[in-house]
């Protein structure tokens, strides 16, 4: 299995001199199975440069998994060029939106309304198939399987685990480490803690032993207090998660849009310095646009 990062920026695309090394496109990850099946995680602006590389493979079948439908994870989808060419198939998977009561098709075709985009869904030439997922539903994508678990973000967000030939990768999508909404003196504190532990354990068990964990790591410990509840994790929380789940490599991604390349490297070093290296530690790496990693 092979992965390639096409978009590693959180929230909004940030082109410019200060982000040129790690990249300014929003979330998009290409995953190839051992039989070269194409799996794409999220359709942020990074899906456009990915699409430009696909012409030699046409016609193709692409398995797209959307973690959640916030803009930075879907904004590139209308520009996924294979959609305009007959013979291609795009299988789109994602969660239901229980607040507005829309399935993944309704949400994404909303993005193709005439006021937002000149081409309507009905005018696309590729075959589009939509699958609204339930939690822990497993999908077969060529020689790989993709299963999911609900993470913690302000909208339903699935983390995806992809397995192929004994290798595995997990992507959190957007995720904030759980926190207790009660104070230690509150009567409800202990009960809430118990529920949190159950959920945390479920997430750790789901991720356990993956070769690669790709985790939303928007914030530093200093950033976090002002951004608690926004649905993103810190370096320190993800270092802990990677250790608990016994992963081999963790890529920190969803870089905070105002963070320059230099600052990004600096905050990782600061976080690692706070967490002395332990024997079974994974590799700690920053996700970078264009980076290819073979499992």
């Amino acid at each position, binding site marked *: 299995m092979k992965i390639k990062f096409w978009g590693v920026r959180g929230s909004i695309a940030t082109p410019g001199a200060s982000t040129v090394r790690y990249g300014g496109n929003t979330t998009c990850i290409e995953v190839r199975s051992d039989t070269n099946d194409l799996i794409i995680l999220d359709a942020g602006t990074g899906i456009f440069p990915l699409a430009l590389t696909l012409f030699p493979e046409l016609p193709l079948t692409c398995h797209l998994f959307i973690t959640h439908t916030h803009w930075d994870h879907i904004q590139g989808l209308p520009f996924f060029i294979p959609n305009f060419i007959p013979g291609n198939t795009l299988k789109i998977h994602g969660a239901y939106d229980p607040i507005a*009561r829309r399935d993944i098709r309704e949400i994404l075709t909303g993005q193709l309304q005439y006021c937002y985009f000149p081409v309507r869904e009905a005018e696309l030439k590729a075959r589009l198939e939509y699958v609204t997922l*339930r939690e822990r539903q497993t999908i077969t994508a060529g020689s790989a399987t993709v299963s999911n678990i609900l993470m913690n973000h302000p909208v339903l967000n699935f983390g995806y685990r992809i397995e192929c030939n004994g290798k595995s990768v997990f992507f959190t999508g957007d995720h904030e480490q759980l926190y207790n909404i009660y104070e230690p003196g509150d009567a409800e504190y202990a009960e809430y803690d118990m529920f949190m532990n159950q959920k945390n354990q479920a997430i750790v068990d789901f991720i356990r032993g993956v070769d690669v964990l790709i985790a939303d790591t928007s914030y530093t410990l200093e950033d976090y207090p002002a951004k608690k509840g926004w649905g993103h994790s810190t370096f320190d929380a993800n270092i802990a998660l990677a250790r608990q789940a016994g992963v081999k490599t963790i890529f920190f991604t969803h870089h905070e849009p105002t963070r320059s390349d230099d600052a990004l490297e600096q905050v990782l070093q600061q976080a690692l310095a706070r967490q002395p290296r332990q024997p079974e530690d994974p590799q700690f790496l920053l996700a970078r646009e264009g980076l290819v990693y073979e499992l």
Partner: protein
Amino acid sequence: MGHSKKKLIQLVDGMPAFPPSVYHILKLTADINCAPKELVRVIDLDPVLTMKLLQLVNSPYFGLSRQIGSIRQAVVFVGINTIKNLALTIAPMEMLSRDNLNTPFLEGLLSHAIAVGVVARHLARRGGVSELESTDFFVAGLLHDFGKIALHRFFPRKHAKALALAAKKGIPLHEAERQILNLDHSQIGAMLADKWQLPPACMASMGQHHRWKNRENFLALDCVYAANIIAKTIGVGDSGNPVTETTLPHEIEQRLGGTLPELIGTLGDLSGEMHKVQLLLHSWNANGTTHPQPPTEPL
């Protein structure tokens, strides 16, 4: 109302209590930084709202892999923001959906009520009312015709007659109600609002939304008065009243800063907002969580 006033008061007394959680939730969620535990506390105090939230969280919409048994557990598993938005969307409809809304008249009335709530909130925001306060305008609009639901439920045949009379003669429904029932929906609405101890502006909206003279001076009442006419003019829902005014009283135009066509011109597309509210109510009613009560005719 004559000799039947006593009976009427008994009937009003027999109406279900207005859930205080509704107001608390609207107030809390208007603040983006509201403490999650406060929200959970308010929901916890309302067993019906708790049940509905859990029903939704455990529904196929969420597709969860495990059963959720409490609001606190729901917050952990689907996130405080999702619970907050779910509560925010369903809380104001509590009162309406706890009622039996399964006749064609009540279906149309519900769409009308939602439209008036959404438009009243729009007019309030436009007039510089804060987000926190604008929810009061939404609730005032949503509940302004609640007296019709009460009349329709207490006196289904007579109220149907009043609806038919208004339609046949082209007279305002409240006039037809007075002719047939000897009282109109704003009178019973005011009594209900009093029983529920709703805020004064909301009480005025339920009791005085057809009056623009000799009435209390509330911006919410102006907004609901105008929103009522706007909803009828743009043709959303059916209030059962065949008469639609074509202009607004000059005083209201001045206070709201526009004539009827001008105010309609500021609406933009509110259909999404209305549709969302409607969908939610329908799915609830389909879930069988309403509490129909037998009619109580004759008075």
